[in-house]
């Protein structure tokens, strides 16, 4: 049911209006003087309205009101530029509006640091770019929106650019995003070669295999870097850690999903994809999931830890996509449906709980003044609401019932284990145990984060003086938490959206989601679990309340140790030491253990740090080697004029001889 190409549909107009509002939101701030509060208010207002418009447009687009294109001025007649809203576009823009709008509220409440005007401008432009990328119907608009996203993302990362680490993170991000741009150059040109046009046209099955593989590899590199899949992920942790919290929430929750959008649409274009593609995606997904969480375990910077978890969740999304591609190659529509449904639902779920966690982290960092979780502790008593929301986010991200993370992981599991029933496809089930192990490790990681940051006794003065987040900061968290519970308890609500997006993916006939996945049972199980839990808690609540009243100041029994101090508690590295030592071969932790040499040991310190292995052991040494190589090349000319003329002669004489005698292939 696509309207004729000429008339843009209502959904498209709403989405474009939202994008326009976002782009303009920051401009007002530029005109007003730096200190005036009005710039911030206008920006937040514009983004909120834009988000509401966008949400309406997104739901309309999802509801099948697709079709209709809005032509744009194209640089040259040969290159057509247009915007169009389809179900997939609707699906991937909804998180942008939800998280973007809430992020603006959180930012306003948070009182953003200096550079507010530039921050607001880039935040608005980033949201606009994120809205227009899924709407782009051709290569040119896609690339322009992609570059605007990359640029504004860079400025947002480098907000506190006086700090050298932030500059380094920004520069590494910029380099990686330029690689994606160049890869996209080649990708869209190959697509134009195969399909005759820059627009996203399906690539025929009989196209030359070499070019189709090239399309796959380029799409994997370009969108894999943007999504942060392992081994292309090295820019992500530092970038997300150095950006302001509400921006990190947007980047982690939504911006990396653009990479997934690109991968999904490009792979959707290819007809009858070879099996090898699905297997590669499954392998990459497993790698990203497992090692994403393993690296997260080694971190003790709160936002870096959450960034690594984004890599883990991207791994899960890639597993879903890989399963879908295997299903398409082997002609199993039920696996395809399960895979793509798991992939798309996890995109939404991750956008919800990851933004919730980053907002929580933002409140914590704002309260304690540092991202170091070893300096926090006992914040639950001082910031009860933030603690509760962070706990809910943690349970959701570990994929534990009754919340939304569990639903999408269940879909992926169903597909993977389903593959085990037939002997020929048993290998497709191998990622299931890896995903289970990832779940176990994620549990370990989030028990560590929640336990050390929110529970126990405060480890620093700042932590003990922490104050609860402002209502404007808590509201977004509440909305996201509510969304997580709703999707977890009633996945049936989102099933139609997923089905329409899945149908629009490759146009193949796919079974309905309810046929392949037990959505009803999941809802019942979730509700029953919550009800039983509430019942049990209600039973023992009076006992505990009485205990609290009778002995309010009972200290924790610590075997009668006289001078117990908060530093006795477990820290991040000690908590995860068991697992990081098992994965030491991959993490390569830098451990500065004290060596006691004198008789009377002086005060020493222990410090362990896990840096990004791919970046520090592979890429940086390679870069340094390249620099040394060019340095030797640079020494060649040594500034002597005669030597320069000799170079010219050295080139000229052989060429002349070749020209006069050889002759250029008469």
């Amino acid at each position, binding site marked *: 049911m696509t309207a004729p190409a000429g008339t843009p549909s209502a959904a498209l107009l709403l989405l474009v209006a939202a994008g326009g509002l976002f782009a303009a939101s920051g401009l007002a701030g530029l005109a007003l003087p730096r200190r005036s509060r009005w710039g911030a208010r206008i920006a937040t207002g514009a983004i909120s309205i834009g988000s509401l418009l966008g949400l309406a447009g997104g739901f309309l687009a999802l509801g099948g009101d697709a079709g209709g294109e809005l032509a744009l001025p194209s640089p040259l007649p040969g290159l057509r530029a247009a915007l169009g809203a389809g179900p997939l576009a609707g699906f991937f823009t909804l998180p942008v509006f939800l998280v973007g709008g809430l992020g603006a509220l959180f930012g306003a409440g948070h009182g953003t640091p200096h550079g507010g005007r530039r921050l607001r401008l880039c935040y608005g432009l980033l949201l606009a770019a994120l809205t227009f990328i899924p709407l782009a119907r051709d290569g040119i608009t896609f690339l322009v929106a992609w570059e605007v996203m990359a640029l504004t993302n860079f400025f947002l990362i480098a907000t506190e650019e006086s700090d050298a680490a932030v500059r380094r993170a920004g520069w590494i991000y910029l380099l990686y995003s330029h690689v994606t741009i160049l890869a996209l150059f080649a990708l869209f040109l190959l697509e134009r070669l195969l399909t005759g046009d820059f627009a996203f046209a399906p690539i025929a099955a009989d196209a030359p295999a070499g070019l189709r593989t090239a399309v796959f590899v380029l799409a994997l590199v370009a969108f894999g870097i943007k999504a942060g899949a392992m081994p292309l992920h090295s820019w992500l942790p530092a970038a997300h850690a150095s950006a302001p919290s509400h921006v990190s929430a947007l980047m982690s929750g939504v911006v990396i999903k653009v990479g997934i959008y690109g991968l999904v649409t490009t792979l959707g274009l290819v007809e009858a994809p070879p099996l090898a593609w699905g297997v590669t995606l499954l392998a990459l997904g497993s790698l990203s999931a497992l090692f994403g969480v393993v690296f997260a375990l080694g971190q003790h910077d709160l936002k870096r830890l959450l960034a690594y978890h984004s890599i883990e969740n991207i791994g899960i999304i890639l597993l879903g996509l890989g399963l879908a591609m295997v299903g398409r190659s082997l002609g199993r529509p039920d696996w395809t449906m399960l895979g793509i449904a798991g992939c798309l639902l996890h995109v939404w779920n991750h956008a919800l709980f990851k933004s919730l966690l980053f907002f929580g982290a933002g409140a914590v960092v704002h309260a304690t003044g540092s991202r170091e979780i070893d300096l926090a502790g006992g914040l639950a008593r001082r910031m009860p609401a933030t603690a509760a929301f962070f706990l809910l986010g943690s349970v959701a991200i570990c994929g534990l019932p009754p919340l939304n993370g569990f639903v999408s992981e269940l879909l992926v599991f*169903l597909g993977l284990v389903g593959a085990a029933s037939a002997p*020929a496809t048993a290998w497709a*089930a191998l990622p299931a*145990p890896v995903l289970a192990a990832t779940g176990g490790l994620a549990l370990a990681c989030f028990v560590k984060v929640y336990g050390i940051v929110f529970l*126990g006794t405060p480890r620093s003065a700042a932590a003990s003086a922490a104050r609860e987040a402002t209502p404007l900061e808590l509201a977004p968290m509440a909305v996201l938490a509510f969304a997580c519970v709703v999707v977890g308890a009633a996945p049936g609500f989102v099933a139609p959206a997923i089905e329409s997006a899945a149908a629009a993916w490759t146009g193949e006939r796919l079974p309905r989601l309810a046929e392949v996945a037990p959505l009803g049972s999941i809802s019942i199980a979730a509700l029953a679990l919550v009800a039983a839990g509430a019942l049990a808690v209600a039973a023992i609540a009076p006992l505990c309340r009485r205990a609290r009243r009778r002995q309010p100041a009972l200290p924790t*029994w610590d075997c009668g140790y006289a001078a117990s101090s908060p530093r006795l508690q477990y820290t991040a590295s000690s908590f995860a030491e068991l697992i990081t030592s098992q994965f030491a071969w991959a993490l390569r932790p830098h451990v500065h253990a004290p060596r006691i040499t004198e008789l009377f040991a002086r005060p020493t310190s222990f410090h362990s740090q896990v840096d990004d292995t791919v970046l520090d052991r592979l890429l940086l040494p390679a870069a340094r080697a390249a620099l040394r190589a060019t340095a030797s090349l640079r020494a060649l000319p040594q500034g002597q004029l005669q030597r320069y003329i000799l170079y010219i002669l050295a080139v000229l004489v052989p060429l002349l001889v070749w020209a006069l005698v050889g002759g250029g292939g008469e």
Partner: protein
Amino acid sequence: MSAGWLVHLVALALVPPLLLGVIQKTKAVFAGRRGSSVWQPYRDLLKLAQKEVALSATTTWLFWVAPAVAVVTAVAAGLLVPLASSPAPAAFPGDFVLFAYLLALGRFATAAAALDTGSSFEGMGAAREVGFAWLGEPALFFAFLALARLSGSLSLDGMLRAMEGGAWLDRTAPFVLTAAGLFVVLLAECSRIPVDDPATHLELTMIHEVMVLDHSGPLLALVEYAAAVKLFVLGALLLQVLAPASQVAGLAGLGLFLAGLVGIAIGIGVLESTMARLRLLHVPTLLIAAVLSCGFAFLLLSRPTP
């Protein structure tokens, strides 16, 4: 309330403490003592239920909610596992994932509660618990894969009850390997001897016991009961892999099933009496062995049949 729900709830409510009692009785007999009676755990639970709760000042609401969550998740997991003749009441395709993740939710709550007290002992217990438990997950899932491969069904109920007795004979190796893997997972989950020593009082060596050090009164009762239910549930799972005796219907089948569970409890007791606790750093190797054995079982089964 159909018959299935009734049987399950009653079994889950009453039987678990009995298994603990049987284990302790076996260990006592092995040590040449008379030991406490088999029904002693029931008396302990009742005693604890009447006691007063002591809550430390540093703990938050999570501390006393966690035991409730542990019990609920254990019981819910129990409802997913069939008990010999009576099918699992809450079965649905994909419930094995819910089963594993319910146990994980219980573990999350207990470990978080341990950290809530702010003492280094509980922190150590929580770190070890989650440090080893993640290895149990892949073993469990390899086992599920093997069972799914055998039965072709995606629900625990289907997996365990679909196999007729004969299946054991022509494919003994995968069964033995899966059962061995599941047994190790059971020992790890319920903190029995080779992985953890429930009866020790030296905090430095404990894993599970030290996490619940600060729970008192009814909270401790709930925790003990949850541990018992987990033992019962995993025991039931293991039993139906070892001896798929679902042909005997009705009460006789249930009786046979309970006898089997008591047999497993005795086995655990014998194992605990004859074996010392593994060094802490060797526990992961044991669990990796479990993963490999279940994995190997699955590989054996997924060979293309000639």
